[in-house]
């Protein structure tokens, strides 16, 4: 059954050149050209998807950086920067003005 399937595919892919009849009707010629188009389209689609699959496999196989390192880097980001800063106590006036700005901003947005 496998041999028959392969033979059928072979026949479909490459029809016997001897069967080409110069005297064939226009309809036959049209049918043959449509068949040829669909054959090319199917082969093209299969080739593209196969190539895409192979490309995905190749890209996925490229070694990625250690995930733990990426997460740890995010978590430790800015440690040096934050450690070197001087943080200053707010004065009473600063606190009052800040709270008022929050209240005003809220009222503006609403």
């Amino acid at each position, binding site marked *: 059954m496998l041999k028959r399937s392969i033979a059928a595919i*072979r026949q479909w*892919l*490459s029809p016997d*050149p001897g069967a080409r009849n110069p005297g064939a009707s226009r309809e036959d010629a049209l049918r043959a050209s449509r068949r040829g188009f669909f054959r090319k389209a199917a*082969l093209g689609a*299969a*080739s593209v*998807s*196969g*190539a*895409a*699959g*192979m490309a*995905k*496999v190749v890209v*996925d196989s490229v070694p990625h950086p250690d*995930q*733990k390192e*990426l*997460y740890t880097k*995010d*978590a*430790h*980001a*800015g*440690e040096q920067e*934050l*450690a*070197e*800063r*001087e*943080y*200053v*106590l*707010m*004065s009473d006036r*600063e*606190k009052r003005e*800040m*709270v008022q*700005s*929050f*209240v005003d*901003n*809220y009222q503006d*947005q*609403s």
Partner: protein
Amino acid sequence: MSKLNNKQNNKNSPAEEVTRRDFLRKAGAYSAASLTGAAMLLSPKPARATKNVTWAEHFQKNYRLMTDEEKKEAIDRLVKRYSEEFGKTVTVDDAPAMDGVLFGYALNIQKCIGCRRCVKACVAENNQSRGDKQQIEWIRVMRLEKGKFSEKDRDDGGYPQDFGIQVGGNAYKPAGVVLEGQHYYEADKVPEKDAFYLPMQCMQCEKPPCVKVCPVRTTYRDPDGIVVIDYNWCIGCRMCIGACPYWARRFNWGEPDLPAEEMNPKTHYLGNRPRMKGVVEKCTFCVQRTRKGRWTGCVEVCPVGARKLGNLLDPESDVRKILATKKVFRLRADLNTYPKFFYFMD
């Protein structure tokens, strides 16, 4: 000779050329078919969180642009997906900001003992990725050497020594403190004798730089002051992570590792619902709790009561009273982000 001539003749005949073309055509077709098959066999299985994502969810709008009906559909899709994925009844809330509320947070650095229970409670409450390789913690606790916060010590050190920007105080009575610490200390017992602890998380800025830089407007400041993220709309560009001066945001480099049995099923669309690979997340003041009048997980779990959450618009709230009566400082105030997370001392 005749045989050779025959061979040559046959070589040049159209039938032979067609045969070579046929061979190439067949070879190409078979190769393409086998490559396709190999690609299908070798492609990895879709990750859990994205396996059941429908086209509708993939192409939904930015949350702020959705109509009420679209929001409801989006929420229903998520409820269905999360319930299937985690094998439990998951709720996804979409409670909006409460009227007349602007959340503020205050943390007493003298009381904090560095136990990191707030960190663990946050991870549990907000469905963060966990495990050795993909641990995400929205809160980080910095360990500082004791003695640095005393104004007296600062005075004794002499002034000025280094040039820099100082806000508040004056040249002869500096009012600042220098934080020299380390993250992720591993002490057998806390508090350590020679240490202070400074927890940090999203400051929920009034003028958040992360919101300014987001190219797709997925992160924004809600009316109650919480800066939220629409995870489905996030494109993972990490611009917000670079913009945040507090390094409060975290990125999901891989598919989050969230065991089903540890998942908190009470979620909010803009808060603690399970995230996916390639999106940013951060502290949201537990919107799933605070918008229902509850404390955040970190406030509730703190064993020494160092954390206070309140309404900045209410003069009788804890945070407003702290601002009025205590010594308060903010991180990186010089950047004018107006953080609503304050540190205070008695």
